[in-house]
């Protein structure tokens, strides 16, 4: 009897390990809310390998959250299929539901039990939640509540981490820590998909920029290496091919793109870059050295 239990435990463990990290496919995924409605997402095709990090952009109402929910398995596609979804999924909604009768620690303890005894304390400490254990969820600020959402998703070492606007409302320390956390999840073999208006993951190496425009999912060429990204942005953009960073003009030519220069007031820089990224262009600010 005992040996059978051990074998069963071994098989269950191996199965969990086997399916935790896997390649995921979106095959002609379309979605609409009602039969006669227009499609919110139409014929989306994608392949996501273990370790992929996807930054999803698009204007408000483009269907980003819907696509994330389809990928997380929370909504069924109207047609098409999402296959190969990793067994362990972490989902962080854009607004954490604070209307629940628990303290932070009480809630995370329950979620840890649901996750089969996962450890939440190290994650709480890492995102700066350790001082809020006894605070009721209803009393949390938006940013602190968002951290609770992050912890419940991260504690189970997800094979697929779905983040809906993960940087919204976070304090600077956590905003700075989040790209590193995403990198660690990807390094373990997890797939990370984040909708992001703030461009917070744009600095990561190898991030795949996706955008949703007119119900179509578009994958854009990856942005230039973060080594070329601005440390001290001056409020400009890309460069003419002859004066651009080494290799950038060749990259642009290879993919049939041109590099343009735009000057904007420094105060408008963030908004300008965000709009360009929302439109699917890999815009970035130049460093001081590149300008001179």
């Amino acid at each position: 009897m005992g040996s059978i239990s051990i074998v069963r435990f071994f098989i269950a463990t191996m199965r969990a390990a086997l399916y935790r990290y896997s390649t995921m496919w979106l095959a002609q995924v379309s979605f609409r809310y009602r039969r006669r409605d227009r499609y919110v997402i139409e014929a989306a095709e994608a392949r996501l390998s273990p370790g992929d990090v996807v930054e999803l952009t698009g204007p408000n109402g483009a269907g980003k959250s819907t696509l994330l929910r389809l990928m997380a398995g929370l909504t069924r596609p109207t047609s098409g299929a999402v296959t190969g979804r990793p067994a362990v999924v972490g989902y962080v909604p854009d607004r954490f539901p604070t209307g629940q009768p628990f303290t932070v620690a009480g809630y995370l303890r329950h979620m840890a039990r649901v996750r089969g005894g996962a450890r939440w304390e190290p994650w709480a400490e890492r995102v700066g939640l350790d001082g809020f254990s006894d605070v009721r969820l209803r009393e949390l600020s938006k940013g602190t509540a968002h951290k609770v959402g992050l912890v419940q998703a991260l504690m189970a070492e997800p094979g697929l981490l779905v983040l809906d606007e993960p940087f919204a409302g976070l304090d600077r320390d956590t905003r700075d820590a989040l790209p590193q956390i995403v990198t660690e999840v990807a390094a373990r073999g997890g797939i990370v998909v984040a909708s992001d208006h703030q461009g917070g993951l744009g600095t990561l190496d190898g991030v795949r920029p996706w955008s949703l425009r007119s119900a179509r999912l578009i994958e854009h060429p990856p942005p230039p290496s973060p080594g070329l990204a601005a440390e001290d942005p001056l409020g400009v953009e890309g460069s003419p091919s002859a004066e651009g960073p080494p290799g950038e003009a060749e990259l642009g030519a290879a993919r049939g793109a041109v590099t343009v220069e735009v000057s904007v007031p420094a105060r408008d820089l963030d908004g300008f870059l965000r709009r360009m990224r929302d439109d699917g262009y890999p815009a970035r600010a130049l460093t001081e050295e590149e300008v001179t």
Partner: protein
Amino acid sequence: MIALVAFRVAAYVRSHRVFQAFLPILVMISIVYASRAPRGAEVAALTDSAVLVIPFLAWATRGLLDTEPDEQRAISATAVGGRLREVAAGLLAALVTCMAFAALTLGCGLALGLSATPSRGVVAAGVVVHALAVLAGVALGALTSRPVMPSPAYSVMALVAGFLMMLLVGASPAYWLTVPVTAWMKAAGAGRLVSELPGLAAISLAWCLAALALYGYLRRDRP
């Protein structure tokens, strides 16, 4: 999944929504068993209480399922490993809660509401009708919960209308078209409940399972 059931029951109790069903059930028990049922009418009294508690059990189920915010349902579904498990955990939590309420109702009836000690057959019939009441309450409450009926006004009206339909259709010759609660009471009043229970229970069980299956089907597209 058991951990998610515990989480949902804990949320229901800690939110104090539990009192929205608990207090009316206490009032109902006080009225139904205010005077002890006379000798020979034990099974009728127990059946009446089982029927009368159904709308409160449906209310309890609706309250429990609606305690969880919509986004928390999404979080729970990913945490427990899928939408199907999340739906099953919600129903199981409602079942556990309603069983506690039904046990309270039956226990008060047996301990305080009867003039004579009931026979084993009467107690068994009481247990069966209360179990069927639990299933009917959970099914009716689940079908009127927020994911299926987002409007609170329509939801409450549907819950009351559902119970009235059970009463009215159950009193007609076509009683088999619903959970025949009036037929339960009629049979109990005529002293035939024990003999007719298998047939009535089969009809009741079939409708409850069909309603729960419908709830599961509707939840596929209503997260």
